[in-house]
């Protein structure tokens, strides 16, 4: 297997842009990445497009995007894994490049949720839980309540995640929300699913992100500061007779452990993390699932400021899904774009000093009986 490098990245600002078209947003992200990489569009050998087929724009969206950017005729693969569609597209492209099939590939994640109107994402009706009124916020509300019950985690600890990520987002010109919030504002915000108010929940939105990856054989031709993909792992949730432990997230544990083994990098070596904070409780229990602390200690990490931008291990310097935004298919690629900028020292006001190693963690989908649907972990190094 060959080494694989990221040689170019780009993204749009995330937000609500109902007047824009998705291929147009994707084109802008792609051209930023292409220029960043210093390659011509027609040098791209294959394109992997992560999206969730929203709003009837979904079928063959990858082909529509690539037509817009002017690159046609090459292999184009549409990849859907709900919220981890973009990172699953990266995983697919990584496999193709490391195995020698291609030398140069493009990954684009794109989504436009604003055209669907307001509200929570509609649950799947074929799942018993979705059919009977479970929503994503309500699922994580139940995770939060059980985590509080077993480990003494408090709602204020969860709110501190939102405070931190909004503060980081206020420094990020690509973020949907660039405004700080206070504990009081979070507590007084409208309740979505008790105990989570709307400021414990990520927004829906629109945007696109892109990355150009390259084999180790070819990288010298293109880039003077490539970022290595030291591990690329995808796992799905496991089924255990419908017995769900809400306080843990088995496939995040398995995916991160495998990524640590492949790369020889441990959680203590990481300089920054972009993780899937779809809800505040998710960030807290992923501290535990990713091995930053022992089980049940996630609340303590946020209390002690260890995951602040200036802390021991900054988490979600971009603002995370909570503040940067969460256009499903774009999210996993946008996380990787953020880490690349930090590892190059190009992250502006939110730069994590001297960052050498970063981890991106992306999670997708509630499926009945599974501990969520899909999980990717990517470890990037300078």
């Amino acid at each position, binding site marked *: 297997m060959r080494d694989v490098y990221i040689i170019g990245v780009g993204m749009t600002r995330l937000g609500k842009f109902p007047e824009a078209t998705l291929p147009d947003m994707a084109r802008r992200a792609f051209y930023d990445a292409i220029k960043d990489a210093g390659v011509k569009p027609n040098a791209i050998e294959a394109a992997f497009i992560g999206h969730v087929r929203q709003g009837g724009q979904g079928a063959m969206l990858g082909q529509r995007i690539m037509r817009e950017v002017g690159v046609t005729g090459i292999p184009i693969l549409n990849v859907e894994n709900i919220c981890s569609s973009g990172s699953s597209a990266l995983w697919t492209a990584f496999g193709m490049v490391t195995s020698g099939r291609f030398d140069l590939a493009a990954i684009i994640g794109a989504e436009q949720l604003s055209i669907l109107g307001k*509200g*929570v994402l*509609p*649950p799947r009706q074929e799942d*018993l*839980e*979705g*059919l*009977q*009124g*479970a*929503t994503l*916020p*309500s699922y994580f*509300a*139940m*995770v939060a*309540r*059980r985590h509080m*019950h077993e480990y003494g985690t408090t709602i204020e600890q969860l709110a501190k995640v939102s405070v931190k990520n909004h503060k980081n987002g206020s420094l990020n010109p690509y973020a949907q929300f660039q405004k700080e919030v206070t504990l009081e504002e979070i507590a007084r915000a*409208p*309740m*979505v*699913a*008790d*105990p*989570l108010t*709307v400021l414990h929940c990520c927004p829906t939105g629109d945007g696109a992100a892109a990355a150009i990856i390259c084999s180790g054989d070819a990288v010298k031709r293109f880039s003077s500061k490539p970022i290595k993909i030291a591990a690329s792992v995808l796992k799905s949730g496991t*089924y*255990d*007779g*419908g*017995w*769900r432990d*809400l306080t843990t997230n088995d496939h995040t544990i398995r995916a991160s452990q495998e990524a640590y083994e492949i790369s020889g990098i441990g959680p203590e070596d990481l300089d920054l993390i972009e993780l899937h904070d779809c809800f505040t409780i998710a960030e807290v229990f992923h501290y535990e699932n990713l091995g930053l602390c022992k089980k049940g200690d996630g609340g303590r990490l946020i209390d002690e400021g260890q995951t602040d931008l200036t802390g021991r291990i900054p988490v979600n310097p971009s603002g995370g899904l909570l503040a940067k935004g969460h256009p499903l298919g774009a999210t996993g690629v946008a996380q990787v774009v953020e880490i690349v900028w930090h590892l190059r020292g190009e992250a502006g006001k939110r730069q994590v000093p001297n960052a050498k190693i970063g981890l991106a963690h992306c999670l997708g989908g509630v499926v*009945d*009986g599974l501990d969520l649907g899909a999980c990717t972990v990517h470890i990037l190094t300078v």
Partner: protein
Amino acid sequence: MADQKKTVKRIIPIREGLFRIPSGSGEKPCLFGSRCKMCRQLSFPPRKVCSECFSEEMEIIPLSTDGKLYSYTIVEYPAPGLVGPYAIGYVDLPEGVRVFSILADWDRKSLRVGMNVELTLGKFKEDKEGNEIVTYKFRPVVG
């Protein structure tokens, strides 16, 4: 005849094969689980194939009607097509299955993790023809 048809409202389970609707006196509602005849793996909702040993020899068994509330939430912002607030949760049954359920007969102060709950059937919603869609629910045990 057409008018008469309209007035006959039926009771329809939210999904076939999930629970028993009592047909006469003495019969009680219950949930149905599947148990693998080979390795005894138990599942709710019932499965066609065992997730442990891949056997297709599954039997349907009635599950206990009493359980403990593992976690819950009061949903203020409802799923599309539903009206909030409503309460949902996970209920642990003694057989070792954790069942997702709508909660019934709750109030904001009474719900707590670990409380005893019992099975009941109740209306989920009406369909376009006015038929009552029923589903299983768990409610706090009084007293």
